[in-house]
């Protein structure tokens, strides 16, 4: 079976994320990037499925040139092909614009299963996977923390408020995975070397027949009007523990009427 994994490459976790006041968008340029941990878990899920059932994994992402480092990581883990939607025309896309671009790329591939990370660690809207499924006419199995394929059916444990639901659909289908679904493998040297030889296919918006009415800032329905600082909490008291830290907290809890 062939699995396409959609995931994001994001500024690495050491970066303090900022919004550029001129574009009102997150600053991404010239920052160290990494494969989103949620995307790495989605890649791992796909790799385990093809190790069990045979097949291959293609990693698909939309992003700036800095995203290459994360694509190489997915390849080093074991993905055998990669597609990079790379074009200034994609910048400023909202969730549906992003979904349209990814769906247009997926449509050009042959696949049995699409796996998306449910939500990226930097913007976590969590709605792109079902948008992609709807655009492609695929059944969406979302918030999966366990995925199995048997014959022509995919079955997942879908997270719920009280536990999980077992849901199933016929392939082809789209599954979105939670970040904690599995621990991504650490790439081995052999994989890293092999990954260097794989050519990353880059597509522009024009390659996918997507115009400014479909993707990019002009097509975005969600418009950010203003970005400001959040309401601040009044500064509290920070003390160094002098051996009575626990008692100080107890005093404070008493003042609040908790004890």
């Amino acid at each position, binding site marked *: 079976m062939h699995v396409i994994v959609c995931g994001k490459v994001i500024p690495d976790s050491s970066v303090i994320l900022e919004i550029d006041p001129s574009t009102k968008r997150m600053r991404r340029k010239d920052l160290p990037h990494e494969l989103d941990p949620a995307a790495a878990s989605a890649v791992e899920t796909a790799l385990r499925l093809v190790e069990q059932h045979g097949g291959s994994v293609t990693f698909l992402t939309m992003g700036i040139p800095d995203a290459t480092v994360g694509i190489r990581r997915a390849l080093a883990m074991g993905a055998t092909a990669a597609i990079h939607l790379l074009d200034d025309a994609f910048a400023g896309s909202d969730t549906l614009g992003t979904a349209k671009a990814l769906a247009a790329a997926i449509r050009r591939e042959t696949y049995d299963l699409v796996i998306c990370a449910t*939500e990226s660690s930097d913007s976590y809207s*969590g709605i792109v996977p079902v948008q992609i499924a709807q655009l492609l006419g695929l059944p969406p*199995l*979302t918030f999966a923390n366990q995925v199995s394929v048997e014959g022509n059916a995919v079955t997942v444990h879908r997270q719920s408020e009280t536990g999980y639901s077992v*849901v199933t659909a016929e392939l082809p289908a789209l599954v979105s995975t939670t970040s904690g679904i599995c621990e991504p493998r650490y790439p081995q040297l052999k994989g890293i070397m092999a990954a260097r030889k794989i050519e990353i296919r880059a597509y522009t918006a024009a390659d996918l027949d997507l115009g400014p009415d479909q993707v990019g800032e002009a097509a975005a329905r969600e418009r950010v*009007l203003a970005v400001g600082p959040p*309401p601040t*909490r009044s500064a509290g008291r920070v003390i160094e523990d002098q051996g009575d830290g626990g008692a100080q907290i107890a005093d404070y809890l008493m003042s609040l009427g*908790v004890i």
Partner: protein
Amino acid sequence: MPDLIWVYAEVVEGAITPTTLELLTKASEVGTAEAILLGSAPADAVETLGAHGAQKVYRSDDALFDDFLTLPAVETVAGLIESHQPAAVLFASSYAGRDLAAGLCARFDCGAITDVGDFQLRDGTVEATIPALGGSYLSTTTLVNQGPKLLLVRPKSFEPNRTGGTATVEQVAAPSSDSVRRVRILDRVTVPVEGPQLEGARNIVAGGRGLKSAEAFHMLHELADLIGGAVGATRAVVDAAWVPYSMQIGQTGKTVKPNVYIACGISGAIQHLAGMKTSKAIIAVNTDPEAPIFKIADLGVVGDVFQILPQLIAEIKKRKGLA
């Protein structure tokens, strides 16, 4: 004429969810509120929705909505939107809410604002405020599409208010097409949670990586029991499988707003802060004086959680006359 605002009502564990009632209260304050209720629901569901501001409830109790995921609801809500054209539709930022809103976006080629903390609606124009990048910023966002304005709202953004109105009921037909019967729900499994639930807990004791192991959570449970609270955790700790996902607080976990939040060995990544920073009082214990959690703490103690918590537990027992 006041704007028509719809709320997609959800049922969890046999009850209308608190977020549904929060959304209805808000909707009834800014416009004419109506609710959509699909699938099995408690006997008093319509009454509860009416009492919280719904003037009408679109209702189907067809088992289709219990047996098949997302697609039947997308089809049904899409049909209702086409015939009644509400100015806005509100969903909780829940599993069902996000899936349904996403499906409707693609269906109507419209936008959706996610993670909404508050909003205004005037003559069909919406302005929503959103805590961006885990609450480091507050952004104001609008939707410029024609057609429905879809908003996914964070839990606990509004106070629910039982004003005591009554709702009329309009029965809606379940879709008959096979295309909505493609994701079948085979089973629902309840994973029991130890101790009180995080949602609705008056006080919360939460642990992070600074606790070093799953065993240290015993200390947190003891403290939580003493102050009548529940125990939560950061994503790092859940990912390390020390505690189950149901205990995760933060952007990808639960949003909580207790009276007192005691953060133990939590550095305060923005994703975690997003789920707890509106707590009424925040107490933090961490070894690193530079930890971001101290910037939002009302009382921060820089020190070793393995010294401070046992002392705190002993002090509370002493003061309660338990020791």
